[in-house]
């Protein structure tokens, strides 16, 4: 019984991590498309690495940098919104 509970908890954690990862990938895809439509350079920072999404570097264009705090904060906001909504529903749930 205890093993079953641990397995269920690990599965739930993995699913939560997977949903956040998919959501972050979706956000990045959206930002890439939007930066292309709106003609801005996009720089995403994460742990000393820079991901540059650009068009032609020699064309002077505005650029948007998403700093490390923004990248980490994005994951936290996504997770927090999901968790908040789930907790709210769990507490207010009534049998139909």
């Amino acid at each position, binding site marked *: 019984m205890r093993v079953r509970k641990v397995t269920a908890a690990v599965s739930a954690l993995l699913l*939560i991590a997977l*949903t*956040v990862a998919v*959501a972050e990938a*979706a*956000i990045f895809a*959206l*930002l890439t498309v*939007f930066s292309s*439509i*709106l*003609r*801005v*350079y996009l720089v995403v920072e994460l742990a000393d690495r820079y991901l540059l999404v650009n068009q032609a570097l020699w064309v*002077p*264009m*505005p*650029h*948007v*940098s*998403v*700093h490390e*705090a*923004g990248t980490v*904060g*994005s994951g936290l*906001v*996504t997770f*927090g*919104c*999901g*968790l*908040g*909504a*789930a*907790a*709210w*529903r*769990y507490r207010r*749930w009534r*049998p*139909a």
Partner: protein
Amino acid sequence: MSWLVRLYPRSWRRRYGAEMEDLVQVMPGRLSVALDLLIGAAIAYRDVIRRDRVLSAAGAYLHGVCVAVLLQAIAFVSLILAGQGSSDPTDFRLGPLVFATMVGLPQVIYAQLGESLQAQASILVLSRAWWPEAVLLTLLVFALAIVIATPRLLRRLR
């Protein structure tokens, strides 16, 4: 057309599956019937999810994640709209934490340009059209409204 019955939840199929398959077989294979079956499957899943507390919370979690994705996309486009027409950096910050910065024109490139080109580049930045951002923002807000309203709309389906 009877394969569409397999889209229904297992508990539902166990109870009504055979009966429903018989019914579908005597009905004409029209698009409206297929659409009815699809909507019926969505309603059946909604009922199964609503009956279970954990499944209901999991559904709410996914809904919250979708809302968060759209909110962040709105924040991104709003930042571009706010920094539009300004060559000074525009920050999106919370206290000491700077999440994102919009720079009207890359300062390095700007500094390398000659005087006449600097003037041209400034005009280019200042004259950027604002309507693509506005249209995108409107679409995103509309999408957010739909996503927020979806659970209520699903609850009304019978």
